[in-house]
């Protein structure tokens, strides 16, 4: 089983795509770094003929992601995709679009959404997931600025301060029993039921399964308190503990 990041194109304007892609990835660079990307051109319909596939592939690589394959591509464009180093995706895409990711009122934008696990036997470069939940990862030393700790397929329990500029990422729940001053992610591979628990919330950013709140959006009343964060209607909700 593997999960993919899907880049769903609604425009052939490379500049627009690049701007939005960079804006998106800059929010959580470590999540998107070297991520395999599936490009879905379905929304483009006939416009797809105007899409410069090799330039697009170069653009995605420039954003430090790996374009793996194109989905819903007309047969006539297949050689161009292969030429650009991408495969042709014929499997199903059960997109679970995160709420708010695609504002209906603004057409013609590319959007990124997480796709739930799909059978991996048809694809090659997929993120390596170990089969079982191996129990939580426990960190007992301070997580300093610039450090990234990712608990793959696991909960992450941090018993020391997470400082500004540090990132702590869990595919399951994230617990920080000390001041949380950095960036925290729970459900990093798309698990909407994941939660974040902080003993002292001073975070720069908190994200669950793709939805996030930035420092500016955290109500002052929550700052410095013990708080849990969970998803409700696709948005992060903060609640004092």
């Amino acid at each position: 089983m593997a999960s993919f990041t899907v880049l769903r194109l609604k425009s052939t304007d490379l500049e627009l795509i690049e701007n939005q892609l960079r804006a998106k990835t800059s929010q959580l660079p470590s999540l998107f770094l070297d991520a395999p990307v599936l490009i879905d051109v379905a929304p483009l319909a006939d416009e797809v003929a105007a899409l410069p596939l090799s330039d697009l592939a170069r653009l995605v690589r420039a954003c430090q992601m790996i374009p793996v394959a194109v989905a819903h591509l007309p047969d006539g464009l297949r050689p161009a995709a292969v030429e650009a180093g991408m495969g042709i995706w014929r499997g199903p895409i059960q997109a679970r679009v995160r709420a708010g990711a695609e504002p209906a009122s603004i057409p013609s934008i590319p959007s990124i959404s997480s796709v739930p696990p799909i059978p991996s036997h048809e694809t090659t470069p997929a993120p390596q997931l170990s089969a079982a939940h191996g129990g939580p990862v426990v960190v007992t030393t301070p997580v300093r600025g610039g450090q990234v700790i990712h608990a793959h397929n696991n909960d992450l329990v941090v018993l020391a301060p997470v400082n500004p500029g540090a990132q702590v990422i869990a595919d399951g729940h994230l617990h920080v029993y000390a001041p949380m001053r950095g960036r925290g992610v729970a459900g990093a591979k798309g698990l909407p039921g994941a939660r974040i628990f902080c003993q002292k919330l001073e975070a720069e950013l908190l994200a669950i399964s793709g939805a996030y709140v930035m420092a500016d959006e955290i109500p002052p009343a929550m700052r410095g308190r013990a708080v849990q964060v969970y998803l409700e209607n696709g948005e992060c909700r903060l609640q004092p503990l």
Partner: protein
Amino acid sequence: MDSVSSTKEATVSNASKVVVVTSGKGGVGKTTTSANIATGIALQGKKVVAIDFDVGLRNLDLVMGCERRVVYDFVNVIRNEAKLNQALIRDKRVETLYVLPASQTRDKDALDAEGVGRVINELKEQGFDYIICDSPAGIEKGAQMAMYFADEAIVVTNPEVSSVRDSDRVLGLLAAKTSRAETNSAAIRTHLLLTRYSPAMVKKGEMLSVGDVLELLGIPLLGVIPESKAVLQSSNKGTPAILDETTDVAQAYLDVVFRYLGEERQHRFIEDQKRGFFGRLFG
């Protein structure tokens, strides 16, 4: 008598300590601190060498007033172009103090772990008690080489947000990208040295307090050096400030040296008035 002294010498050389003076941010006082601590420890009779890792810039020899006696440098020794003893400069004021200057004509790529390790080992064999590595600013190769072989680190920080953040970053590297970290040995002992501190500005809320800095960095405080003109004057003269005991900077660095060598000394220069700062700090 003979056997006693030789035993002592053996113990000393086994216990030689590699200390990196680092910070991340530039201009916070790494070189000043390296010069003063090296001089201060040497004044206690220990054999000390200060190595300038700022290859390409060369500052330490100026601050220590030996720039006119530089013939060979650290990079020459690493590249086997000179013997260690040809590059080591003995201080004219303190007998047991030496400087290993940086090269001004090379860049940081001239440093490699193998060569740096060889030089440090040779210094240990020569019986140096303390090997003080003056790190360049930043977190690139020069800084990483300076910290790689360290047993202890003195993290120099100004009471200012960006400096504190950079120090935090460097503490992360000390815990991950050093020989001790890579061989799973005991972690590097880290000490915080807060420099350019002005209690009056802290009082007015214009500067981070000692408490603010300690809260974020969470490592033991080695000392606080007050902001002072004496630092600039002593750098320009090439005489480490610690040699003129009348200044507050010298007093502060002397405290740091004695504290570092294991003596208990109360912290000074934290408040305008000398009253119960401990109460305010930890109370």
